[in-house]
């Protein structure tokens, strides 16, 4: 097994079993806010215990180890064909080791060959940059939260949502309301305003690469992020939809240009079991540092 493949297995392991610090801190803050004796509090206590147990036992935080999304920033000249091949091998091995569930199914026949490798799995996004660094980020996104994502086309008459930031606010809050507890809240939203139907969802997921405690550099979007976070937490949906104050842990919003005829708002929902890690790699594939 190559050095790169070994590094990718370690990245998969770490992502599957360890919740990043920024997410765990947000969960702890949520737990402090919930009232003693409520089922919301007890849900967050079980979640906290689960995070510790997964790390200690080096076993998946959640059994749904999800869609496997790699984001690779690489120098010009990196052999992407080879990288992808190594990533596939790493996924197969990580599945054998139990860091990933046998989670990839042929959409027509329903056949699950148990490897997690097939058309579209794993999913790799390459981005070349003018640097010698190789940075690989991995997001494992479970099906429960993926299923509650929504894409709106503005204007939306039913929600009285026009083509402006207030319209965006309305549809994003509607997505939170429709998700209720089904996406394993408290959740994190990744949103893209603009783009086309495909790039909108793709960019909404890319927002999950941001740390929860960062702030948007665009003051208008920063204000919208804080507003949605605050408002969503006043809706009383709470952890798992049990009621309570902790409905969302974070909101991240990005934008892409659109064509004049289209105005999409794409909302991806991430569960509390927010599995995202990243590693810096040397040119031989060895891990030189961690990103989260």
């Amino acid at each position, binding site marked *: 097994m190559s050095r790169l493949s070994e590094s990718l297995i370690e990245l998969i392991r770490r992502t599957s079993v360890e919740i990043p610090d920024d997410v765990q801190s947000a969960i702890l803050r949520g737990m402090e806010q919930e009232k003693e004796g409520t089922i919301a509090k007890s849900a967050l206590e079980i979640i906290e215990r689960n995070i510790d147990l997964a790390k200690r036992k080096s076993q998946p935080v959640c059994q749904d180890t999800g869609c496997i999304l790699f984001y690779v920033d690489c120098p010009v000249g990196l052999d992407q064909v080879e990288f992808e091949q190594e990533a596939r091998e790493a996924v197969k091995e990580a599945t054998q080791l139990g860091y990933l569930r*046998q989670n990839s199914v042929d959409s027509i026949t329903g056949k699950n060959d148990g490897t997690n490798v097939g058309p579209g799995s794993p999913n790799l996004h390459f981005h070349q940059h003018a640097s010698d660094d190789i940075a690989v980020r991995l997001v494992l996104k479970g099906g429960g939260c993926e299923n509650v994502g929504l894409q709106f086309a503005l204007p939306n008459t039913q929600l009285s949502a026009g083509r402006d930031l207030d319209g965006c606010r309305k549809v994003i809050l509607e997505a939170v309301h429709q998700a209720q507890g089904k996406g394993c809240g408290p959740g994190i939203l990744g949103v893209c305003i603009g783009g086309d139907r495909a790039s909108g969802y793709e960019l909404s997921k890319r927002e999950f690469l941001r740390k929860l405690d960062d702030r948007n550099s665009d003051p208008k979007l920063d204000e919208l992020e804080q507003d949605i976070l605050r408002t969503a937490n006043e809706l*009383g949906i709470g952890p798992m939809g049990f009621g309570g104050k902790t409905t969302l842990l974070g909101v991240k919003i990005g934008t892409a240009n659109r064509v004049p005829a289209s105005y999409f708002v794409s909302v991806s929902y991430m569960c509390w079991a927010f599995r995202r890690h990243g590693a810096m790699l040397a040119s031989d594939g060895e891990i030189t540092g961690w990103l989260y």
Partner: protein
Amino acid sequence: MTHNLSSPISEEAIRELKVGDQVLISGTVFTGRDAVHKYLHDGGELPDGVNLDGGILYHCGPVVLRDENDEWKVTAAGPTTSIREEPYQGDIMKQFGIRGVIGKGGMADKTLAACQEHGAVYLHAIGGAAQVLAECITRVRDVHMLEEFGSPEAIWEFEVQDFPAVVTMDSHGESLHKDILAKSEDALAQRH
């Protein structure tokens, strides 16, 4: 209030449970999710050895490995989203005598009506808590339809001890999910 539940469960015991009650489940639990529900609803028969009468069905696709002694070992086993089984659940519950369904996210009117009519409850486990819940599984008794449906979709027969869940839909027509949906809708309307 915390109740202890273990299968087979009587209708009387189920009728005592109310929305908001916390329960600790012990005894036998069968998993079944998307493929199993569709199969049974389409007229498929339960495999030999699977008896759901008075039993508990768990919406779960676990991670299960073979250990060094070639025994099954569950390494992650939280609930999956239940609403996908809404078209089937009520009928299957009544047909096979299921008294409790464990899952996450809640279910809708058809299942709620079946819970009331037949005497069953929906038990909400903590989504994503795969390790805490796997620790409550003391033994894998058997697995059925592994070949047909693959590991996450197979019918796993687990022995569990003090598996925690919350009653969010009871046999008296009450649903926490309906309640929270209505309240959050009002709250949202005030903030537009």
